[in-house]
Each structure stands twice: as structure tokens, then as C-alpha cells.
């Protein structure tokens, strides 16, 4: 039990000669709080799934020399998407399902579940339908199930992606308590902002799909830097004419209010950056503007209420670049995606010559016949941005457009957007947790926290 977890000679790939993870030698002490940190696509999630025994069972190839001294039966996992990890309808039933699987006798089941739910503080949620729980409550329920299972190693794959600050703090505290009780906690995350209080050991994953353990000082420096709020040099939104105006705007998820704002406005034909802790509701706000989630209050575009637009008209007014690139595609190959946007798109910038140049700028040349779903994460992201820019809607909403892009690609994307703006400016809102390179490119900076949108230019002055 006290032997550390060692991972040796691991090479994992989905396609031949394209490893998504290469680890020569990595040690994770038992009873530690370990953070696998790196950009999306760097292999940290793959490592978690290898440890859980889900890979290579669910696809991919692991080299024969690989040695991991951790049995999958010792682990249980919390997944990134809180609603895709339960088979049953309530936390109580899910816990029963899990303990039935472990062949626990039903007389022991009851108190094991009761204790675990009490530990995580979700006893009052035991019989609630998952559909009525917030993301944070679901993740805590998932943790309770794992605790009831008495698994010594708890794996978490970006568990905070849709959690509000309160639930995140609760979950982190409970994980710390589990570590104090002797369990091993391993989390994969691309964002360090939440972890300063926990002082985890950090294993850094890079784009070459390799991992190195950071010395304590370096880890400390990273954590401290991540905790600092960054304000970019911007101008106040209200100094420009507004395109989108919200009054008494209220936005909710089940049992959680995300936004309650008396007045807000988005300047016309400018680039507005929208930041906020993960789970604060940034994506939901974009979806609300795309009319994909309901809202209360009043919301107007160029003085006309959103309610008055029919779906078809609205699609011509507002483009939402989804966080998950594949959601955007409607066809099979890249050539077909481009052809559709050429046929339907209205952005005057994209003359044939400019389009070819843009494809080249984004490094997508020669991929025309590739299946879009088989492109790398970065290529999908860039293609997604290109086909949406070509549509030329007056309002463009970008949800984490730089996630999974290297610095050069992100720069190319910004360059292309700037070029488009020069020909036909659009009102652009960018949600991004990565701020590198955004100074001077964005015009305004709104920050969402505690259900309020703050204009950081006004806060500063």
C-alpha cells in the first residue's frame, strides 16, 4: 500500500507513430495531492484514463513495455462532464449501483452510503434527481459515491470546469480531507487558479506529450502567478455606442444564479473580453446571447428585443463559436465545411485570394480532404474559427477560441480576426482564460464574478 505509484516506459497512441503520451518514468507518492497540469491535448487526461484502466480498453494502443503498478480496482474517477458520469437518476441510487457492483452486502451498503454522503455534506441531496442538481452538486455527489466505494486512489479529470466558487471550495476541502485520511488524489487540469490553498505537487505536461515533475519552488511560483487577477489595458465599454444592451438581466442554472445585473452593454464593432472563474457562467452568458438558454429580463440587439427575432434570422445575426470545436461542424471533410461557409457566408473579407491566404496562415493548407473529426484539436479549432468568420454575422461570440492552440496559432487567429474587422467590423465577445497576447487586441474587458459583470477599465480608474 505504501509503495508509491510508478509509471514507467509508457507510450500511448491512437494512431501509429503519433503518441499522445510519452512517459519514461514518473512517480506519484501515495497519500499525496498531485496535479497534472498542462494545456489541452497534452496527454494528462490520457494518463488518468490509463491509471483507471479505461485505456487502452476504450481505444488506442499502449506499448508492451509499459509498467504501471496501480490496479484499476484501486481507483475511481470523477469526470469532466458532471452529467455524463451517472447511470442512475439520484445520488442514492448511483451509490447503491456502485456498491452492488462491488458486491457489498445490502446491510453494509446503507451505512456506507450514509457515511459517505455525510462526509461530503450531500445527505440532503441523496434522493434528488441529478437533472435538478447544479454541476457542483453533481461533482460532490460523484465524490461521495467514490468515497462510499472505499477506493484508495481518486482520479479527477478537470472536475471544476462547471463549478461555481462555493462548490469548488467545498470540493477542494473535501479532497484535502481525503488526502489527510490517507487517500491519493490525482487531478488533471489546465488551469491552476484554484489550487493555491492546497499546495499540490505539480507534474507539468507539455505539447511534446511529455511530463516532468516541478520542484517545489517552481510549483509555488506557478500557483502564485495563477492566483493573481490580470487586468488588461482596455477602455470602458460605455465609452462606445452599444450593440447589445441588457436590463435587469437574470441568468440561472438549476439551483444556481449566475448573473443578476441591472445594466450591461457590449460596445458595437469592438472586441470585448469576458473573463471569470470557471463555472461563473461565462459560457452560459454566450449561450444566452445565442438564444440557446433562457434568460429573464430584457436583452436587445441594436435596440430590438432578442425575443422578436425568429431562429433563422437570429442565426444570421449572431454566430457562436462553440467551446467544443466538433459541435460546429455540419459536414464530413474540411473542403465541405469551407464550401458551405463560402456558399452561405457574407463576410466581404473572404475573397478567393484572401481565403487561400487565411487557410495558409492558419496552417490548414493541404488538409482539404481530411475528415474534420480526425483533425488534431488545434486544427479543428482553427477551422471552426475560419468557417464562422466567413459567415460574417454582425455579432460573433467566441467561447475559449485559443484553448488547445500554441502561441503561434493563437497569434495567427488574432491576426485573421483583426484583418476581418478592418474590412467589416463585427461586435465580438471573447471568453478566454488565456490572456497571453490579448493586450492591445481586445478593446474592453468585462469580468464576471458574484453574479455581476464588472468593467475592469472602470474598476481600475
Amino acid at each position, binding site marked *: 500500500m505504501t509503495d508509491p505509484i510508478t509509471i514507467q516506459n509508457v507510450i500511448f497512441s491512437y494512431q501509429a507513430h503519433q503518441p499522445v503520451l510519452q512517459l519514461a518514468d514518473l512517480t506519484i507518492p501515495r497519500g499525496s495531492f498531485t496535479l497534472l497540469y498542462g494545456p489541452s491535448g497534452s496527454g494528462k487526461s490520457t494518463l488518468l484514463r490509463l491509471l483507471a484502466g479505461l485505456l487502452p480498453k*476504450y481505444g488506442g494502443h499502449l506499448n508492451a513495455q509499459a509498467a504501471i503498478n496501480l490496479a484499476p480496482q484501486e481507483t475511481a474517477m470523477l469526470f469532466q462532464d458532471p452529467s455524463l458520469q451517472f447511470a442512475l437518476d439520484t445520488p442514492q441510487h448511483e451509490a447503491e449501483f456502485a456498491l452492488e457492483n462491488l458486491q457489498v452486502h445490502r446491510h453494509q451498503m446503507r451505512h456506507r452510503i450514509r457515511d459517505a454522503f455525510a462526509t461530503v455534506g450531500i445527505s440532503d441531496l441523496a434522493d434528488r434527481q441529478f437533472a435538478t442538481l447544479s454541476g457542483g452538486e453533481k461533482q460532490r455527489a460523484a465524490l461521495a459515491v467514490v468515497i462510499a466505494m472505499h477506493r484508495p486512489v481518486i482520479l479527477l479529470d478537470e472536475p471544476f470546469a462547471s463549478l461555481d466558487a462555493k462548490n469548488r471550495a467545498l470540493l477542494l476541502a473535501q479532497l484535502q480531507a481525503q488526502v489527510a485520511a490517507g487517500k491519493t488524489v490525482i487531478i488533471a487540469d489546465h488551469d491552476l487558479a484554484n489550487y493555491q490553498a492546497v499546495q499540490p505537487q505539480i507534474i507539468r505536461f507539455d505539447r511534446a506529450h511529455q511530463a516532468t515533475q516541478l520542484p517545489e519552488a517552481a510549483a509555488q511560483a506557478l500557483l502564485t502567478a495563477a492566483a493573481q487577477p490580470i487586468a488588461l489595458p482596455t477602455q470602458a465599454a460605455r465609452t462606445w455606442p452599444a450593440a447589445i444592451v441588457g436590463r435587469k438581466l437574470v441568468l440561472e442554472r438549476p439551483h444556481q444564479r449566475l448573473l443578476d445585473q441591472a445594466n450591461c452593454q457590449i460596445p458595437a464593432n469592438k472586441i470585448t473580453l469576458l473573463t471569470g472563474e470557471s463555472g461563473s457562467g461565462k459560457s452560459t452568458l454566450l449561450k444566452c446571447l445565442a438564444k440557446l438558454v433562457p434568460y429573464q429580463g430584457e436583452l436587445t440587439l441594436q435596440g430590438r428585443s432578442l425575443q422578436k427575432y425568429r431562429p433563422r434570422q437570429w442565426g444570421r445575426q449572431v454566430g457562436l463559436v462553440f467551446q467544443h470545436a466538433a459541435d460546429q461542424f455540419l459536414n*464530413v*471533410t474540411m473542403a465541405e465545411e469551407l464550401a458551405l461557409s463560402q456558399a452561405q457566408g457574407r463576410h466581404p473579407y473572404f475573397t478567393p485570394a484572401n481565403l487561400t491566404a487565411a487557410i495558409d496562415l492558419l496552417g490548414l493548407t493541404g488538409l482539404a480532404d481530411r*475528415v474534420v*473529426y*480526425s483533425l488534431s484539436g488545434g486544427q479543428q479549432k482553427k477551422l471552426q474559427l475560419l468557417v464562422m468568420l466567413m459567415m460574417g454575422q454582425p455579432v460573433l461570440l467566441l467561447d475559449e477560441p485559443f484553448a488547445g492552440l500554441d502561441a503561434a496559432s493563437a497569434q495567427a487567429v488574432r491576426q485573421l480576426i483583426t484583418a476581418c474587422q478592418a474590412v467589416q467590423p463585427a461586435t465580438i465577445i471573447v471568453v478566454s482564460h488565456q490572456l497571453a497576447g490579448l493586450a492591445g487586441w481586445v478593446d474592453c474587458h468585462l469580468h464576471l464574478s458574484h453574479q455581476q459583470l464588472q468593467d475592469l477599465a472602470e474598476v481600475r480608474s
Partner: protein
Amino acid sequence: MSTRYHLKDIILLALIGIIFGVIYYAGDFIYNGFSILLTPVGLGPMANDLTMGLWCMAGPMAAMLLRRPGAAFLGEFLGAAGEMFLGGQWGAANLISGFVQGVATELGFAVTRYKHYDWLGLASSTFFATLITFGWDWFRNGYAHFSLGLNLILLVARFISMFVFCGVLVKLIANLLERAHVIKPA
């Protein structure tokens, strides 16, 4: 059959049935529309026949996706089992129609010896689905009492519906999935 189906296949089959149900319901009660239009001219039951193809799509789709014996039946039947608790008003009666439609669509692939996940298999599935569901309605929905002429019209309507949705549309979807390398070429 149970050894050939893993947990993820079963979830996928049930999901396909439910998704097709959701899309159907989102299509705004086409059945009711047809029914109200056609009943005054004596062709009311045709609403059932014209929409039958939509109801039976999950079966052939599942077969084209998983390409193994039982897929069409399970896709249709598990979907119906799901809708029993979701769709509401038809309750357990859903299971019976799901069973009949499942057998009907499966048979087409069975007689082609589970080797034709292509035009032939789909055409055969369409053919059997038309005949068997029609035979079922002969008893259950009183088609036996209609005139021969009306029955012929209904049979043709049903075949067209099956052909369009379970044949052409499923093939078009399968082509997309094939080109996206989700399923291997036939």
C-alpha cells in the same frame, strides 16, 4: 447475443432509439397533422402509414452502425423501452410496437445473412418492415375492415414512407458516417 453486445453498445442502441424519438417529436406531431387533414376524406389511417417510416428508422440505422445480428431489433426495442418511460402516453404499449417493428426491421438483414449492410440489406429491411407492420395493423388497427382499394393505397403509402425514411434517409446518414470513418465501408 448478449456476449456480442458490450455495455457501450447497449447504451448506444438505446440512445439512438431515444434520439430518433426526440427528433420525431420535435418534428411537431406530424401524425396528428396528417390525421386531421386526411380523416375527412376517408384516408385517416394513412397518417399512420405515412409516418411509419419515421418510427422504424432506429432499427435499420442501428444495424448499419453496428453491423451485427440483433442490432436492428435492439435499436428499435431498447428505444421503445426508453420511450415507454419518457414519451409517456403510450406506456407499455410502446413495447409491443417496438417488438414488432424490431423484428420487422431485423428480418430484412437476417434474410440477407447479415452480410449486406448496404442497399440490398436496407431494401430488404424496408420490404419486410412494410409487410410485417402492415400485417400487424391488419389485426390491431382494423385494416381488415377497410376495402381492398383502401388497403392497397395504405400499403403503398406505408412502403413509400418506409422507403424514404428507413431506406433513403438511413442510407444517406450511413454514407456520412462511413465517410467520417465512424463505420467501415460496406
